[in-house]
């Protein structure tokens, strides 16, 4: 299979969902069965992505396939010279893995939704939106340039908006959609500015060309500070999309959307796009930028984990755990654990999708009850859901033999190594704390939902195991949360093919002075980074990290069981004793309130003030000058009436008077007039005296 063919297939994979979106949107009303067509198309796309993945990871495992075309061309432009805008696709190992992940989860979510969304009044429309989303997400994955990514980035935002607000009759849903879009836009502005900086400097959007530009020593506006700024600004896009602090607020609200959507978009794929973007621009990140990224990631993961501890909505807990895990990935990228970050992205996608679909299954069974305080004991009623949910929970908690253990352990090791190399010990500390919390709140969730006795007997009685169409995706996803798919050795992630062969950290292109010393490539020509120092550090921390994470997770699980299963410790009492902290967590650190009070109200208020300014001051000046003109007109009118017109009237009066006097002369007889003419002539003659 030739390279060109692979690219063509990838383009087909990209366009298939778009095609089905259009078909479904336009004809959806007439043919309600079109959702099957849509699902079929996605399945086809999945199969094709399998084909691409197979050939890419076997035949072309070390090469990068790329294809560019000119979107628009300005020709020779004054000052700049040749100027054109290109778009293109690129297939490397990351791409094909992402293709696989996106298409697989999308396909499974389609199957799941057929059952879950059954009976909705906009059933086909829902599938159309899923198609649009899949298209946009694949676009991000396939693009080889920032512009392409930005375009699909926004389209992903659109489909996310449409899907979150799918049940727009609920005000909370449409609010959440709007919030998601706007919050993302904040990040997008940063990303856009970052792209502008890079484009202005290097005249291209293409990653490879930008990298080679940086490698050749050209800096934006002759300063590495601007390069740092560009990196951070582009990362801002990821902050928005991957729900990092301070733009994380939209993701929990996004749970207003249908649960399968949460699984697909807000857990597995779209939110991971931010991480994916940072993966793509990893090579141009300077040390400062990486530190910022690491800190933001770490803080986000801590923030979200603390909030997740106290939430009672099954989806909210999962949402905050998603934010927390995304923070992990971002942190990992910040500390230079590139491969582990991406690895975690993939494993997280599977187990988190499984968790969300599992929660969807529970919610479906409980007739749209989401509060875990109303659940309990569902283990018996829903064995498949329980089993898959448990496997995924183990994975997210980092218990050995799961995929999550592999990726999370490597990631935490990366933070430890970073701490050792740079002295930023706070980051690994946060990392391990969050690991503990994660295990705790996830098991709290599992125990409260599935274990114990039902707390709402009525709803429990009506609960039932989900049908096959919903169960199969759960089984597939939980199966993918087992270590065996990634490495043969359950405790050595990098021994496997995933990290050993497919994913390797690219070498940085940033000038040495501006990058971490452990990131400097020993062989500057190599594409893949190779740093003795870093590898040594990683080797040193590997086992301590593993032991620490297993120990913490174990303790956390034990704690969760003793609090919620065995009831040895009363959680309410603890909550009572640290009431302020508990409330702080329950209310999500009051961040929403803070934003509402500051930015949102501030902007609206500013809008109102400016409108007042517009209507009263600007327009006031206009109307005022009009008024002034009118007053002047009135004054001159008065003048006109009484002075000018007075004169006129006087003249008229005089004329009238004279007229009356001379009226008699006006006899109407020609001859009389002639007499006057005669006298006038005589008069003239006398006056001028021609004689």
């Amino acid at each position, binding site marked *: 299979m030739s390279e060109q063919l692979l690219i063509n297939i990838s383009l087909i994979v990209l366009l298939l969902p778009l095609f089905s979106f259009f078909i479904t949107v336009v004809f959806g009303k007439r043919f309600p069965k079109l959702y099957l067509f849509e699902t079929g198309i996605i399945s086809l796309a999945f199969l094709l992505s399998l084909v691409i993945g197979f050939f890419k990871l076997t035949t072309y495992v070390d090469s990068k396939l790329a294809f560019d075309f000119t979107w628009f061309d300005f020709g020779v432009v004054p000052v700049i010279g040749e100027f054109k805008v290109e778009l293109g696709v690129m297939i490397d190992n990351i791409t094909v893995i992402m293709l696989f992940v996106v298409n697989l989860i999308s396909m499974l979510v389609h199957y799941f939704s057929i059952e879950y969304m059954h009976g909705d009044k906009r059933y086909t429309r829902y599938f159309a939106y899923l198609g649009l989303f899949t298209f946009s997400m694949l676009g991000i994955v396939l693009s080889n340039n920032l512009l392409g990514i930005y375009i699909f980035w926004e389209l992903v935002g659109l489909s996310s908006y449409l899907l979150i607000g799918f049940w727009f009759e609920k005000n909370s849903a449409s609010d959440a959609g709007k919030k998601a879009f706007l919050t993302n836009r904040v990040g997008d502005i940063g990303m856009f500015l970052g792209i502008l900086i890079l484009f202005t400097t290097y005249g291209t959007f293409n990653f490879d060309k930008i990298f080679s530009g940086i490698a050749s020593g050209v800096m934006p506006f002759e300063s590495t500070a601007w390069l740092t700024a560009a990196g951070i600004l582009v990362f801002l896009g990821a902050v928005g999309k991957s729900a990092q602090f301070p733009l994380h607020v939209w993701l929990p609200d996004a749970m207003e959307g249908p649960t399968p959507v949460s699984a697909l978009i807000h857990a597995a794929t779209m939110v991971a796009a931010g991480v994916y973007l940072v993966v793509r621009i990893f090579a141009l990140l300077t040390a400062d930028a990486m530190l910022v990224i690491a800190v933001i990631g770490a803080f986000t993961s801590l923030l979200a984990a603390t909030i997740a501890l106290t939430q009672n909505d099954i989806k909210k807990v999962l949402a905050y755990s998603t934010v927390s895990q995304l923070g992990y990935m971002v942190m990992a990228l910040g500390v230079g654990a590139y491969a582990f970050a991406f690895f975690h992205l993939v494993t997280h996608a599977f187990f988190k999708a499984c968790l969300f679909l599992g929660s969807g299954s529970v919610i479906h069974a409980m007739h749209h009850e989401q509060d875990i305080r109303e659940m309990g004991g569902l283990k018996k009623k829903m064995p498949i859901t329980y089993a898959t949910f448990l496997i995924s929970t183990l994975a997210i908690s980092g218990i050995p033999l799961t995929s999550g253990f592999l990726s999370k352990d490597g990631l935490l090791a990366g933070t430890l190594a970073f701490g050792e190399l740079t002295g930023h010990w706070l980051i690994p500390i946060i990392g391990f704390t969050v690991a503990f919390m994660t295990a705790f709140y996830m098991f709290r969730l599992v125990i409260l939902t599935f274990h114990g006795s039902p707390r709402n007997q009525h709803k429990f009685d009506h609960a039932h195991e989900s049908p096959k169409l919903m169960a199969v995706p759960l089984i597939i996803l939980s199966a993918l949360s087992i270590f065996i798919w990634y490495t043969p050795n359950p405790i050595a992630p990098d021994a496997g093919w995933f990290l050993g062969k497919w994913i390797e950290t690219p070498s940085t292109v940033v000038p040495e002075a501006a990058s971490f010393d452990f990131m400097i490539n020993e062989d500057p020509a190599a594409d893949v980074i190779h740093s003795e120092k870093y590898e040594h550090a990683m080797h040193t921390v590997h086992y301590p990290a593993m032991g620490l994470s297993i120990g913490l997770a174990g303790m956390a699980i034990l704690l969760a069981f003793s609090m919620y299963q065995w009831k040895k410790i009363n959680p309410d009492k603890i909550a009572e004793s640290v009431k302020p902290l508990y409330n702080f967590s329950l209310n999500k650190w009051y961040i929403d309130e803070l934003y509402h009070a500051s930015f949102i109200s501030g902007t609206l208020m500013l809008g109102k003030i400016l409108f007042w300014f517009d209507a009263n001051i600007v327009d006031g000046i206009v109307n005022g000058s009009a008024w002034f003109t009118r007053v002047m007109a009135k004054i001159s009118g008065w003048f006109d009436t009484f002075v000018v017109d007075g004169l006129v009237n006087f003249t008229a009066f005089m004329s009238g008077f004279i007229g009356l006097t001379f009226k008699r002369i006006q006899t109407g007889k020609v001859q009389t007039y002639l*007499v006057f003419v*005669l006298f006038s002539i005589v008069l003239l*003659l006398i006056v001028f005296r021609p*004689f």
Partner: protein
Amino acid sequence: MNIYDIIFYLFAIVTLVSAAFVVSTKNIVHAAFFLIFTFFGVAGLYILLGADFIGVVQILVYVGGILILLLFGVMLTNKITNVEIRSGTTQIVPALIGVGLFAGILVLTMVSTEWKSAPGEIPFTTAYSLGKVLLTDFVLIFELLGILLLIALIGAASIARREKE
């Protein structure tokens, strides 16, 4: 005082006296007849001035044409036997004063002005030269006047025929 002067005064007196009668007589028919004398007098003056052709035309057109026309007008608009034929006058006093003054000043002006007179040869007959000039230099005006006369003819007939509404 040569014969020329005598003839001039003769004609001048005839003209002016008869003109005075024209404007002062009450009887309109008398006025018309005095007008004939005036025209004759003027014709005499023309001839004295060497304009023989104009003099002849004066007699032909005025005496033969216009005056007959006027008489017809008188007869059509007045019942001859009626007293009405004795036409009245108005505003005699202001007219006398005005016209008197006017005439005085005019005559004074005419007489006192130093005219740059350069009397040339009096041609024996002017008909030839007039004819030549009329059909060369003034041919356009000549033609136009012909048309004017035609229009006047038609117009006069048309106006005179209009019935009272």
